[in-house]
C-alpha cells in the first residue's frame, strides 16, 4: 500500500514538475497576474493596498483552477484508472494522493510566493509570516475541493469552465477568511478567529473531499 501510494505520488509530482512545469510556470503565472492587477485598477497605492489581500487570494484561487482540468481527465482517457483500480489502493486514497500531488506541484509553490506578492502590492513586510501560513492552508483546501470538481466533471469534456463553476462557490469561504485575516491584521483586529476558521475549513476539506472525489470517480468509471 505504502509503496503504491509513494509510486503514484512520485509519478504525479514528477509530471507536474517535469519539463519546466512546477516552479517556473507557477512563478511566472502568478507574477503575470499580479502585474495585471495594478495595471487594470490603476496604480494608486492606497486603493491597491486596500484591495491587495483580497486580490492575492482571488489570484491564488484562480491559479488553482487553471490546472484542475488535467487532474483526472487525461488519466481517465488514457486508461490509467484501469491500472490504478487493479492495485490495492481504494479510489479515495488515489483521489487524495492525486490532489496532494497537484497541490505540491502548483498550489504550494504559489502559496510560498504569496507573501512576496502581497508586499509588492503594498502590504507591510511584517504580515509575511501570517500570510504564508494562511496561503498554505488555503491552497491546500483549493486543491482538495478542486479535486471534487474535476472528478464530477469527468468525461463531460466541458472541462475548464464547468469545473470552475462547480468549484468556485466552495472557494469563497477560504477567500473570505484569508482576505479577512489580512484585513484584520492590518487594522489590528484579532486574527485568531479568521485563522481558526481557515484551518478548520482546510481540515474539513482534507477529511471530506477525498471521499466525495472517490465516489465521483467511481461513478465516472463505471
Amino acid at each position, binding site marked *: 500500500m505504502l509503496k503504491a501510494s509513494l509510486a503514484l505520488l512520485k509519478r504525479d509530482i514528477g509530471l507536474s514538475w517535469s519539463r519546466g512545469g512546477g516552479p517556473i510556470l507557477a512563478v*511566472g503565472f502568478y507574477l503575470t497576474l499580479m502585474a495585471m492587477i495594478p495595471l487594470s485598477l490603476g496604480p494608486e497605492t492606497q486603493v491597491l493596498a486596500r484591495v491587495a489581500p483580497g486580490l492575492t487570494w482571488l489570484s491564488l484561487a484562480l491559479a488553482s483552477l487553471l490546472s484542475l482540468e488535467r487532474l483526472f481527465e487525461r488519466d481517465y482517457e488514457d486508461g490509467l484508472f484501469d491500472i490504478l483500480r487493479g492495485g490495492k489502493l481504494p479510489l479515495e486514497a488515489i483521489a487524495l494522493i492525486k490532489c496532494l500531488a497537484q497541490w505540491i506541484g502548483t498550489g504550494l509553490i504559489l502559496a510560498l510566493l504569496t507573501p512576496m506578492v502581497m508586499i509588492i502590492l503594498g502590504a507591510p513586510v511584517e504580515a509575511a509570516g501570517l500570510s504564508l501560513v494562511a496561503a498554505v492552508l488555503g491552497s491546500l483546501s483549493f486543491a482538495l475541493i478542486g479535486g471534487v470538481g474535476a472528478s464530477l466533471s469527468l468525461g463531460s469534456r466541458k472541462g475548464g469552465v464547468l469545473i470552475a463553476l462547480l468549484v468556485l462557490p466552495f472557494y469563497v469561504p477560504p477567500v473570505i477568511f484569508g482576505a479577512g485575516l489580512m484585513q484584520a491584521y492590518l487594522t489590528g483586529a484579532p486574527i485568531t478567529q479568521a485563522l481558526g476558521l481557515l484551518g478548520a475549513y482546510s481540515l474539513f476539506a482534507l477529511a471530506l473531499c477525498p471521499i466525495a472525489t472517490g465516489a465521483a470517480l467511481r461513478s465516472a468509471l463505471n
Partner: protein
Amino acid sequence: MISWLANPERFSRIFTPIRPYVGVAAALMFMWGLYLCFASPEDYQQGDTVRIMYMHVPAAWMAMAVYLIMGIASFFGLIWRHSLADVAAKAAAPIGAAFTALSLLTGSLWGRPMWGTWWEWDGRMTSVLVLFLFYIGYMALHAAIEDETRAAKSTAILAMIGLVNLPVIKFSVDWWNTLHQGASVVRADGPSIAPDMLWPLLVMALAFKLLFVWLWLLRIDTELMARRYRALRARLSFAEEGN
C-alpha cells in the same frame, strides 16, 4: 558569413579558444569599472546612492539588448532553419532574464531612497516587468515542448512577437509622464550626463557586455554538446535495437 558560422562544429572550433580571453577581459573590465564607480564623485542630489546607477543602467541596457539578440536569432532560425540560431536564442534567455531581474532589483533598491517606494506601477517599471515575464514564458515554453525542432519554432514565434515590448520600454518614459527619468546617455543630441559619471558607466556597460558574451558562448557550447550527446545516444540505442 552568418550561414558559414551557423555550422555548429565550426562555431565551436572558432569560439571555444576565444572564450577564456573574453572571460578574462570581462573580469578586468569589472575591476576597472568598480574602481571607477567608487572613485567617482557623489551626486549633489542623490549622494552615495547614485552608485546604484552603475549597476542599474548597464543591467537595464543588457536586459533589452539580450532580448533583441534573441529576437534576431529567432528570426534567422525561422527563416533559414539554422539550428545554431535556436541554440543561441535558447542560451541567451536565462542570461537576459538574470540581467532583467538585476535591473528590476537595483531599480527598486534605488527607488526606495529616491521615490520613497520599492515599487511603483509606472510605464517603464511595468514594461520591464513584462519583459521579465517574456523571458520566463520563453524559457517555460522551451522546457515544456519535448521535441527539439518544434520547441525551436514555437519559441522563435513567441520571441518575435515579444519584440514589440522593446520600443514600449524605451519610449515609455516619453509616452507616459512617470517617475522614471528620461534618457540621458543614449539620445539624439549626445549624452547630458556629467563626464565623470559617464566614464564609469560606460566601462561598466562594456564589462556587462563582455560578461554576457562569455556566458553566452559558454552556454551555447554546453547546449551544443548536450545535443550532440543526445543524437549520439539515439543512434546508439537504435543500433542496439536489432539484437
